[in-house]
């Protein structure tokens, strides 16, 4: 793991959790059956920045995110959110899952999905009041989906569904946003809308972590990269860490043809 040493400010130093890091992961291992999907990963997310989690298919990107959120149970390792255990900071985290994990024929409208983001405010018995509806509509407006509020979610295109998920996360008014492949299979208009919202979140001082697959846009969109292939390969600012060398180390022999092209383009950039 020589690359890992090049990339970060030293693994040993990173073992000390920074108190103010929005998401600090230490020695995280997750396995499905006997094969680790994520092995002994350390991660320190910089506050107020946009970080891309990058790696080949099956490299454990989504698993890393899910383990950070407690959706899958890790074999070992600790997760600290803003310097405290995950369970005490739930209200400060918003998660945008992959679109494919949902049954889009579920009987619910766009606005109902966004109102799920206000779950904590609504409580068990609280009624949905005008103030909640207004807040939900405002979030839909930010992703350009206000006109779709009353539609059944199955009537939306893939990109629109993704934007609704982002609106639900916005409704949570969180400090740390974790998104799993928000740009996968969406149209250009959606990609533009989503990146616009993410950049405005950053401008508000919030932290954004995105599982990302498109190497060509990394430089345009992100401040930091986290390269993973089961174990961490490198972590740091895009300018110094997103290099042909680290990419080669991340993707190795597992590159798909399309990724080879992207890799070449990215390395040239």
């Amino acid at each position, binding site marked *: 793991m020589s690359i890992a040493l090049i990339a970060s400010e030293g693994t040993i130093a990173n073992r000390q959790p920074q108190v103010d890091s929005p998401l600090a992961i230490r020695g995280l291992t997750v396995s499905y059956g006997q094969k680790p999907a994520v092995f002994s990963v350390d991660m320190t997310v910089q506050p107020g920045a946009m970080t891309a989690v990058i790696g080949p298919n099956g490299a454990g990107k989504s698993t890393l995110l899910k383990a950070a959120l407690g959706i899958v149970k890790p074999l070992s390792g600790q997760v600290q959110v803003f310097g405290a255990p995950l369970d005490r900071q739930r209200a400060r985290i918003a998660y945008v899952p992959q679109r494919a994990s949902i049954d889009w024929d579920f*009987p*619910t409208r766009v606005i109902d999905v966004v109102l799920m983001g206000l779950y904590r405010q609504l409580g068990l*018995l609280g009624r949905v009041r005008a103030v909640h509806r207004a807040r939900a509509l405002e979030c839909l407006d930010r992703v350009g989906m206000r006109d779709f509020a009353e539609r059944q979610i199955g009537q939306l295109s893939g990109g629109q569904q993704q934007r609704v998920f982002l609106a639900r996360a916005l409704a949570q008014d969180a400090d740390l946003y974790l998104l799993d492949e928000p740009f996968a299979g969406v149209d250009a208009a959606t990609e533009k809308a989503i990146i616009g919202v993410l950049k405005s979140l950053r401008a508000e001082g919030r932290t954004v972590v995105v599982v990302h697959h498109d190497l060509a846009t990394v430089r345009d969109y992100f401040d930091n990269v986290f390269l993973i292939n089961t174990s961490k390969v490198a972590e740091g600012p895009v300018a110094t860490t997103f290099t042909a060398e680290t990419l080669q180390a991340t993707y190795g022999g597992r590159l798909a043809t399309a990724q080879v092209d992207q890799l070449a383009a990215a390395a040239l950039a």
Partner: protein
Amino acid sequence: MLGDALLLQLGYNATLVAIGATLLGIAAGSTGTFLFLRKRALVSDAISHATLPGVCLAFIVMVMLGGDGRNLVGLLLGSAISAWIGLVCLSWLVRHTRLAEDAAIGAVLSVFFGFGIVLLTVIQTMGSGRQAGLEGFLLGSTAGMLWADAMVIAIGGAVTLALILLLRRPMTLVAFDPEYAQARGLPVARIDLAMMGLVMAVTVVGLKIVGLILIVALLIIPPVTARFWTERSDQVVLLAGIVGGLSGFVGAAVSASAPNLPTGPIIVLVSFGCFTVSLLLAPGRGALAALLRHLRFQKRVHLRQGLLALAQGQPIYEALTLRLLRRAGLARADGVATDMGRARAAKALRDERRWQVVRSDQAHEAAAALYDGLRDIETVLTRDQIAEVDRAIGSPEGVPA
């Protein structure tokens, strides 16, 4: 006779049964909705079949303790305990083995039910007359229903409904997006367990009226029926409760209106009637509406293709296309276009050329995505944009104006 039954004029027992069945239907329909939304409908079948050994063991224990083996509260308590054990077995199998849920359901259901049947036979040999009609729990038996029995059902149903009101939001969230719910810190496993607990309560309460074999119908048919009519989960819950309650009431009344009609199966058939009507007639999701939509769409496709063929002077071989064109006054019987037909055909061809331009131009990406061969270009582009497209086509092509 049926009129009397519907107006609760058939006597004390029939009235008790009707009220009990209505309450049970409401509770079962609304509880079943969450099961249906969570896509775990068949788990209820495993739970209900797992009640039988509990009923039998409770009977045996009560008789051995010198009590009345037929005490309903005791029997239901026994059924609840064994249903719970069945549920625990089921979730253990799913979580800790490679068995898929459907296989695990099959295993738990058949083993518990088989064990229950064995116990039933044992009870039969314990001394005649004391058997107390435990087979009644298989398909329900309402003949000897007592006031106390009705009270058990009423209280059970009311508690179930109150819990649904309390848990509807987390249960909906977990059903829709369990990973998101987990990420927000909701206790997903415990919410699922609570849902199963509700299903179990409904099952146990419904043993007397519908019986353990058919209770799954009362849990699943109402939400499936309700789903045809609405796109909102809260309304599905409400409608499913109404459908369930209605089925319970009408079914109980019908079975009381003639001798020897079994209550449980009639209730199930009534709810199936509601389902059939919804399947056929519901707007939007119903079969008839879908058929009409398909026919309308087919007509549009044929008309459009016919017009394009007319515009390009191609012969039309398809009888349906020709018939539609003729009926719309666009072509004569021999396939020659009328004046109106020629005008519409020219417009169709021009629009097709415009679409070609739009679809090859990156600037019109959003509009191009809407192309389906049928849509009028005026619905996606402004008049100015169309004029611009027309300039791109240019007149040399000889596009008829």
